[in-house]
């Protein structure tokens, strides 16, 4: 189940409808991996855990998919960001729990499985 407001799969076109700063803010707020495309065309997939735009040279910080890092990337070195990873805050687990709980109430003697 994916939250209707989730950015999962979003591939924003920076500069047309949305600014680089806005996309970075969204990526920072996103609880999944993203793919950062640098100006030289190289890509880094990982979790953007920090961004600082209040300094002379704004930057983001990323742990890659292996958990290595942090890697610092300057705003000026970012060409694109794609929201490629699963949105872990999309809320599916809670919805599943509620469904299972409701079903168990209708079937006395049964309880939802742990972590349902």
């Amino acid at each position, binding site marked *: 189940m994916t939250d209707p407001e989730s950015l999962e799969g979003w591939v924003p076109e920076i500069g047309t409808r949305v600014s680089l700063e806005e996309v970075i803010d969204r990526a920072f707020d996103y609880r999944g991996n993203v793919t950062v495309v640098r100006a030289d065309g190289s890509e880094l997939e990982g979790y953007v855990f920090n*961004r600082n735009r209040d300094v002379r040279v704004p930057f983001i910080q990323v742990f890659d998919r292996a958990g290595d890092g942090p890697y610092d990337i300057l705003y000026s070195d970012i060409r694109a960001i794609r929201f490629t990873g699963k949105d872990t805050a999309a809320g599916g687990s809670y919805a599943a729990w509620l469904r299972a709980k409701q079903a168990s109430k209708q079937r006395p003697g049964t309880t939802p499985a742990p*972590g349902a």
Partner: protein
Amino acid sequence: MSVPLSQMWAVASYVVTQRLAGRTRYPLVLMLEPLFRCNLACAGCGKIQYPAQILRKHLTVEQCLSAVDECGAPIVSIPGGEPLMYPEIGRLVKELVARKKYVYLCTNALLLTAKLEDGVFEPSKYLSFSIHMDGLRDEHDEAVCRDGVYDEAVAAIREALRRGFRVTTNTTLFDGANPLRVREFFDAMMDLGVEGMMVSPGYSYAKAPDQEHFLRRRRAHELFTQILSGPKRRWKFNQSPLFLQFLMGKRDFECTPWGNPTYNMFGWQRPCYLLQEGYAATFQELMETTQWEHYGRKSGNEKCRDCMVHCGYEPTAVNHTFASWRGFRDTVAATVTGRF
């Protein structure tokens, strides 16, 4: 109140020292998150929603201790994630106790009995297990989205108490909580023999799965008034009585976002334990470069409007105690009489 005298003295002398030194911003409790991994997925929690590589990571003990030394707060709270899943939790706690830090290990207790049987911890006046209990059996199991957790936690509490450990509880309340049931829950915890209880309204984490049941401020005042009016003498709370009066709407405090600074694998979290607006590399950078005036209720920040959570307001209550004779007198009066 149930806070031991030695702990009260440690906090009081620390606060007085800070004030005499002319410091207006200082931390009281370090929120140390060694990992985000958890063995539960509670509906109201916004702390554990991360990609797998982040959930696999954790801080080293050395990183934790460095943060503790850097911060200097007399109390260290270890939330998470589930701290008992941290592979080096025993060594971390031992090192903190050796530094005479008062440690609150915040746990859902699912792994506690096994850790106690393995001899991971030793009883100390500096160590308290703060067990997550959101109510009686039905309410708690509903809050943590798994049946049977309440019973496991109660068994672990009994075992920890039997072995001579300090045990407290921490309870988060959401809209829809039944005041009478909460009062029954307080009775049940006191019957178990816990040292004291902590209560707080939940914060509406943007990332929490359940977005429907967070308390707004007026409703929170009503609920806590119903719960805490005419408190039983036997109820012991491990928190400032002025904070409880604030929850009841009897005091109007402003948030102290730097009071409980948070350190985790991302760094020092801006501005507080609840909001994630970025990270500083050092504690000094956090204190000096965070735009504190953008946070708290008076700032008009939408994210702070309804927040009444202990991590922002308990430091205010503690500071209020030491800011004037009146604050001190009010705290002593509530402590001695047990009335809020």
